[in-house]
């Protein structure tokens, strides 16, 4: 579309009818209509990039379908509407299969039908452009620089693995505590791989009841079971050519594990209640916060499926093991939140940095983000100080801090908590709490710990 409007080329050898269409479409000031009497004449003007072409089928120099193919050769995206007096259904079907956008019969209603057809085509074009630009934005959004933030060694290792995943089609299994960014990594792999122009489809296995998983993943035909009122495309089919992300894969029950294994082995899927086999070309990325190998040992997860989906394992480090990444991420979240809310950027005071670095983040990056966003709101709008930062985690290990206890009881609980975290290493615990190790030994001796 040009800046000055929507350019429509009419190919019509009947000057009378051409003039009617020209006049009618010209009632829209946004439309710039130009008429050509022959196919050759049109072809020599395609460089002017029309936004839409209407085509008569009986032209003096060539047949309409022949001209349509020549237009397609030149530009596969120009919408073409056939306007013809030929009441030939077979021909109309043939042309529609060839890719014309609409077939209209020349009669009294044509001008209105054409008007509506052009509106529909323009809406479709607009949507198509929006989808393209959203895909492009999504691609930019999921570049490494924008999504996986940090410089720690633990993260550098992850970057190396993601690079390997991007350049191949290997399945990927992502492990890591909740909030470490498993889906972010899966998207980064997809949007930086050759599959980026196809779909990224994410499914949380824990969120779907077992009895619905088969239909959700593989789709179903109309009438396959009670309630199947229409055909449903499964997630595998939706992700064909792209990436399927199965989150919380460890939650899959044994029955569905077998079905998933079969689909992965055969690389084809049959909708529930259907017969047609649909060939699949899907990159599978799975994720779990559980130890899948342990589940295999306990016979809770199929060993053959485990090896089939494991592919390239990527273990995401918890935030507490990423050192200064906490501050890099904090600054990133501050920047994002202030920008999104039209606020000036906020700096981190020394006390705030120290407080952030001391915390353990059981909810990982997700929790840090929530803490920072709340702290921005609590801050004076210029600098974030320690008091603005509120740790509100619901991890049961920290709940004891909220209970009403004597100082002695709290002391005991704190030492117990640190001992557990340090695997009963008294020396490390004493150092961390800045107390004498004899204090801990004494409490142990007295049966307080």
């Amino acid at each position, binding site marked *: 579309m040009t800046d000055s409007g929507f350019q429509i080329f009419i190919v019509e050898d*009947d*000057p*009378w*009818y051409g003039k*009617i269409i020209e006049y*009618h479409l010209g009632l829209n000031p946004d439309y710039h209509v130009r008429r050509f009497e022959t196919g050759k004449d049109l072809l020599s003007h395609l460089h002017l990039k029309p936004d839409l072409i209407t085509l008569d089928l*009986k032209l003096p120099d060539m047949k309409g379908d022949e001209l349509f193919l020549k237009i397609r050769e030149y530009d596969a995206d120009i919408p073409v509407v056939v306007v013809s007096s030929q009441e030939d259904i077979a021909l109309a079907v043939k042309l529609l299969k060839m890719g014309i956008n609409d077939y209209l019969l020349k009669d*009294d209603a044509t*001008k209105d039908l054409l008007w509506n057809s052009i509106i529909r085509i323009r809406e479709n074009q607009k949507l198509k452009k929006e989808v393209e630009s959203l895909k492009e934005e999504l691609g930019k959004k999921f570049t490494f620089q924008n999504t996986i933030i940090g410089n720690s060694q633990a993260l550098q290792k992850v970057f190396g693995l993601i690079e390997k995943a991007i350049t191949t089609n290997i399945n990927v299994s992502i492990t890591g505590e909740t909030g470490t960014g498993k889906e972010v990594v899966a998207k980064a792999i997809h949007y930086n791989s050759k599959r980026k122009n196809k779909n990224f489809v994410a499914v949380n296995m824990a969120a779907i009841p077992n009895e619905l998983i088969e239909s959700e993943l593989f789709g179903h035909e109309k009438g396959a079971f009670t309630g199947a009122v229409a055909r449903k495309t499964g997630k595998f089919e939706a992700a064909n050519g792209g990436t399927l992300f199965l989150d919380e894969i460890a939650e899959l029950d044994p029955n569905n594990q077998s079905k998933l294994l079969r689909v992965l082995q055969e690389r084809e899927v049959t909708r529930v209640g259907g017969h047609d086999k649909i060939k699949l070309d899907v990159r599978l990325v799975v994720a779990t916060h559980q130890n899948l190998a342990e589940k295999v040992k306990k016979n809770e997860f199929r060993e053959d499926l485990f090896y089939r989906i494991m592919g390239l394992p990527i273990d995401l480090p918890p935030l507490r093991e990423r050192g200064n990444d906490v501050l890099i991420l904090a600054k990133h979240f501050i920047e994002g939140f202030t920008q999104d809310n039209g606020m000036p950027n906020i700096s981190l005071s020394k006390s705030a940095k120290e407080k952030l670095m001391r915390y353990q983040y059981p909810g990982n990056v997700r929790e840090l983000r929530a803490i920072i966003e709340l702290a921005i709101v609590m801050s004076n709008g210029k600098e974030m100080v320690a008091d603005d930062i509120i740790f509100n985690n619901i991890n049961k290990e920290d709940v004891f801090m909220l209970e009403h206890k004597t100082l002695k009881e709290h002391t005991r609980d704190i030492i117990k908590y640190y001992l557990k975290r340090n695997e009963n290493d008294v020396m490390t615990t004493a150092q961390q709490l800045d107390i004498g190790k004899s204090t801990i030994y004494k409490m142990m001796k007295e049966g307080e710990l």
Partner: protein
Amino acid sequence: MENKLYDLEKLDEMSPGNAKFKNDMLQLFITVSTSTMEEIKAAHDKMNLEEIKRLAHRLKPSLNSLGITSMLDEVKRIEKEELSEKALKAVIMRMEIILEIVNRELREVKFEQE
């Protein structure tokens, strides 16, 4: 009921209030149909049936819009029927006569600006 040779109701509905457009369209029809009729006769002289069909087909929308149904019927016969040489000649002659009368009358029509 009067058997009219043409009916300008559809043309009128196409552009209510725009007399210039309607007068232009009538003039255009007279010019185009006359030249097309000449082309049909030339194609007939060469017995080029495909060309006769194409040209007759091209007349259909305007004949339909101006309600010139008698001539439209003749065009449909050319398009759809396997006419003998003699029948085809007769159809073309009838078309020429109808067109001559219609165009003579249309030359007298003038839409007035409302």
